[in-house]
């Protein structure tokens, strides 16, 4: 990868997420969950230099995609999806009776979606107790939801597994999950990806398992104070050099609002192995200033 970094606008503010505090997330107000307003923020970020939109699949983000999909665009919007929405899954499990309740609800949604590939993989997974087939079923369902929402004005560039899935699989040595996802996504012509808070561990495990980093998108926290960089900032920085073939995207570059944009840029610009960054914005002014500065300093 070259020096120019990919700039992505993230969706955390639209879900009421702030990693610094819930109080801060609440103070942003409800407008951010309004798909029309959120779509304006995404497009303002793109106009100011963002290369694409990184989002977790949810009703909120799919609604945003539907709004954007209706707009006239010269170039397709580049999408980087994160699946599944683990927070939504956890809440569903809480009210639906744990993992079995969640599985029943998800199975119903997949059947209703009438996505043949998703249904076939799901049935095969249950019939043969094959977790890889179930994963393919879930991924097929998520991809179909995104494609149906985004219309023709967008391209699904990558599909990444949520950090909780990635990190649990890392801990449990479930290399089959990584291989299944990579092969499935590539089969669809989409780049496979993994979000993780344990970047150093992921690179070590990929090397150990002989998994090729080429074309794989890895999203992980990178910031000057080492916030959420496990096991340490130093080890995550060193790990960057071990995965030069991967496209590594940094999130939490502002350490959840703890750092200013110039401070964040000063740090990430010292990391040649970091190929891009994802940043969320809450206002039109932020969209313009943040991506104006990012594109000037990191993507010029």
């Amino acid at each position, binding site marked *: 990868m070259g020096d120019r970094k990919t700039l992505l606008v993230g969706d955390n503010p639209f879900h009421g997420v702030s990693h610094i*505090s819930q109080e801060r997330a609440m103070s942003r107000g409800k407008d951010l969950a309004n798909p029309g307003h959120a779509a304006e923020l995404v497009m303002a970020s793109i106009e100011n230099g963002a290369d694409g939109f990184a989002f977790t699949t949810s009703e909120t983000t799919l609604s945003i995609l539907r709004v954007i999909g209706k707009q006239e665009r010269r170039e397709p919007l580049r999408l980087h999806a994160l699946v599944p929405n683990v927070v939504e899954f956890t809440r569903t499990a*809480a009210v639906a009776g744990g993992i*079995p309740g969640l*599985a029943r609800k998800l199975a119903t949604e997949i059947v209703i979606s009438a996505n043949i590939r998703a249904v076939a993989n799901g049935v095969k997974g*249950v019939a043969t*107790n094959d977790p890889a087939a179930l994963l393919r079923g879930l991924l097929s369902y998520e991809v179909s939801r995104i494609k149906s929402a985004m219309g023709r004005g967008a391209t699904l560039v990558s599909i990444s597994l949520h950090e909780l899935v990635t990190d649990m699989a890392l801990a449990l040595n479930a290399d089959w999950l990584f291989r299944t996802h990579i092969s499935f996504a590539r089969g669809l012509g989409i780049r496979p990806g993994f979000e993780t808070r344990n970047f150093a561990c992921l690179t070590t495990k990929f090397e150990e398992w002989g998994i090729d980093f080429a074309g794989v998108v890895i999203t992980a926290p990178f910031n000057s104070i080492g916030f959420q960089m496990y096991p340490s900032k130093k080890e995550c920085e060193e790990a960057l050099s071990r995965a030069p073939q991967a496209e590594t995207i940094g999130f939490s570059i502002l350490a959840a609002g703890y750092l200013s944009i110039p401070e964040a840029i000063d740090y990430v610009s010292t990391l040649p192995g970091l190929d891009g960054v994802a940043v969320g914005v809450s206002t039109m002014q932020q969209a313009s200033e943040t991506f104006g500065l990012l594109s000037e300093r990191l993507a010029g």
Partner: protein
Amino acid sequence: MRPTAFGSSERVKQSKRVAIVGLGKMGLLHASLLNVLPGVELVAICEQGALIRRFGKNVLSGLQIVGKVGELSGRGLDAIFVTTPPSTHFGVVETILSAKLAPNIFVEKPLAANAAESEELCRLVEKQGPGTNMVGYNRRFAVTFGKAREVLDEGTLGDVHSFQAHAYSSDFLGVRSSSKARARGSVLRDLGCHAVDLAMWFFGELRVEAAEADAVPGKGSVDSVSFRAVTGDGLAGGFKASWCMENYRLPEIGLTVNGSKGMMRVNDDDLELNLKDGDEHRWHRHDLKDDAAFFLGGTDYFREDEAFVRALTSGSEVEPGFRSAAMVDQVVDQVEEKASGHGR
């Protein structure tokens, strides 16, 4: 012998052999963390659900997956983690102890479905003799609450005269049927118990004076609770718990403590200190060395499991043990009793 994810084969030889009962959300979380902790060999999982068991065998290759707790016998286990629903904790732990399946036990919070069961479990582990027991009140391992305890121990607030605690989530906001909420028990036993545990960790035993409970989605579930309690030293505390609050995408536990020298507010994210001499401090998790060798679900879970394993290895006790957790269940029982005459 199956190597742990991050351990050398030499380390595995000396590892503590651990099993998990219950392969739900918390079972998976602990299984993952135990698999990365040095000095631990995760050897077996017990899961009652046949479908999950079948998938478990394919997902967690190399592990023994059984359907009944008794089937964990004869495996030379050093410890068992119990992560089944709270209503089953008593039966599971009783079986572990009576069949001598493992001398050390970790139980996800709350310890049991009521104070009587918790008390009996304390009696049983004490009768069994030496062993490490722990209950999963993970908030004690969060850096913000650890710092709050430090502030209190140092006497920075002067004489503490009152506190308020809360436990909020949006889990059941807008959920009309109460059947699922009922399945999880009351909000106080499910979520509010964290606030009770922290208050008791900070201030000691509590006696409930008055309590009210409400069912927001429908009759039969306890979705919102408030109560007043006092400590042995006469310190007054107010508690509120609800899982139907707006804007709590993630559950939040928090306390505000008032003292002669100022006020402290602490929650999962930060700690704020406002002293009467004009001194003000605010610490975010960022400022409090929120480190972990592996992150999953939160750094506090890693530190919690690490503390249990360390105690296991050294043969020492660890807090919160069964006795501390039983005291939380006593408070919850008192609240339910006092609230039974109010708006349920």
